[in-house]
């Protein structure tokens, strides 16, 4: 009787342990999805802000036709993009086109005095930041999931239930801002 109970107890403990690992994996996978949704929300927000921006700068920057058209085209490329890799490339193009537009805007004092433009500039710059931060969190979520999928013992459960590794969201051609390094030694 007692050995039977011990064996039964062990089985229950092992099952509970496996359920815990499984639930942890599901939680991580959901977190990755949720993190991606946040990135997507911000990308959409940027997309929606651009017509407004174009309307505002048009009058001031009539000599910068090329710069403005580049933004319009980059935006069109985003809506026309098919798969995820293609879309990400298009979003990267849009980031660059917008960056150029704001760089050029620096030389238009009238434009920079416009409260409407300043507000839009802050909105767009902040949206760029939000995209970066959401992406950063997404990559961390992917890292946590991938660690669990690869590492023992959770990799056994992951293998049984087909949990797959996710890919990081890398952005090429990014202007990385490095912190100044100060050495006190």
């Amino acid at each position, binding site marked *: 009787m007692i050995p039977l109970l011990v064996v039964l107890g062990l089985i229950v403990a092992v099952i509970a342990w496996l359920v815990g690992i499984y639930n942890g994996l599901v939680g991580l996978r959901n977190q990755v999805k949720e993190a991606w949704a946040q990135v997507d929300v911000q990308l959409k927000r940027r997309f929606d802000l651009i017509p407004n921006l174009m309307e505002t700068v048009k009058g001031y920057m009539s000599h910068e036709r090329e710069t403005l058209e580049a933004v319009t085209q980059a935006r069109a490329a985003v809506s026309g993009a098919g798969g995820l890799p293609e879309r990400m490339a298009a979003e990267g193009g849009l980031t660059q086109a917008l960056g150029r537009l704001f760089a050029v805007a620096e030389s238009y004092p009238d434009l920079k005095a416009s409260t409407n433009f300043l507000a839009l500039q802050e909105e767009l710059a902040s949206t760029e930041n939000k995209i970066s*931060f959401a992406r950063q969190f997404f990559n961390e979520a992917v890292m946590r999931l991938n660690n669990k999928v690869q590492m023992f013992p959770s990799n056994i459960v992951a293998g049984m239930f087909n949990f797959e590794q996710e890919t990081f969201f890398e952005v090429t051609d990014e202007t990385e801002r490095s912190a100044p390094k100060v050495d006190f030694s």
Partner: protein
Amino acid sequence: MWEQIAANKRKSAFLVTVMALLLGALGYFGGEYFMGKGGGIPGLALALVVWLIMTLVAWFQGDNVMLSVAGAKRVEKKDLPILHNIVEEMTLATGLPKMPAIYVIDDPAPNAFATGRRPENASVAVTSGLLKSLNRDELQGVIAHEMAHVRNRDIQLMLFAGVLAGAISLLAQVGLRGMWFGGGRSRSRRDSGQDGSGIFAIVAVVLMILAPILAQLIYFAVSRKREYLADASAASFTRYPEGLASALEKISRAPEKLASATSATAPMYIINPLKRANHMAANATGTHPPIDERIRILRAMGRGSFADYDRSYMKIKGVNKGVIPGSALKEETGGPAPAREHVSASQREIARQVDDLFYRKDGYRRIECSCGTVLKIPPDFGSDTARCPRCGTTHQLA
């Protein structure tokens, strides 16, 4: 970072347990002393009841009291768009389930704090002096530090530890006063003779004197550790340690003192609002690590990862043991810093928004002239019309 919360919980749980044992011992021996033999258990119960009441009061009133004591006003996106955007950015970086509510305190001393028992109902409060003296990157560093407190569950912990330290100090004071006036049943001790209660008396006296000091020291130690961790987390959220470092530098140089801070609320602020100077004594008796040490660690860390912070911490402090739990170091993606868009003149813009906010709160009317000038009309303005000083257009106020 996920793991880090768990590791923090374990270490802090140990220290809080020590404090709880101190409280229990104080109650037990105090009981034995005042109520005679067998009074230990009722004494223990009394200590627990005091603690429970204080905890409940703090738990259900914590946020509101702190925000109202500080005179904080809730602001929305339309009031301070830049601040709102920064908090939203940090919500994404920290992965908090909900964006904290934003409050502004009209005080020239630059400082900031976070409250909220759970991440779902957290608030961050900043002073108008902070908003006016920092640029966007620096403000982002400060907000990241505050939201790290929310994210790392520091507010909960410091509330809990603070109440424990408070209960210990209260009981010890009452006990010492009782002893001084020869209160309680201490006479019965003499009657009953040598039953060992003399030892209880000695232990009780020692506890009453030492327990509050010890509890305070533990409380400070926990608080300081959380500050380092919040700095490290802020650097890892923003991937830009210089923002926070430069903000701390500016805040520490400001001569103003925060009017509304008390010792109970001090650990929640980004820098200790009560202590200005960097005394050596601040090392053991402060809620915050010395500020120039925090700045030096942030500046020497290079990139924004936990591992960088840990290395820098050990180098600056000259110690072999880091401050970041090992499990947190394994969980990092590292990766490039996010590209940041520089918003030109944002410091002036933030200051303007803060001014507008308080003009509005004071009942000023805001009229945007077609020439781009903004007119601010005081509530007791005598005339029905106002003339734009730049282009001469007359605006109807009625």
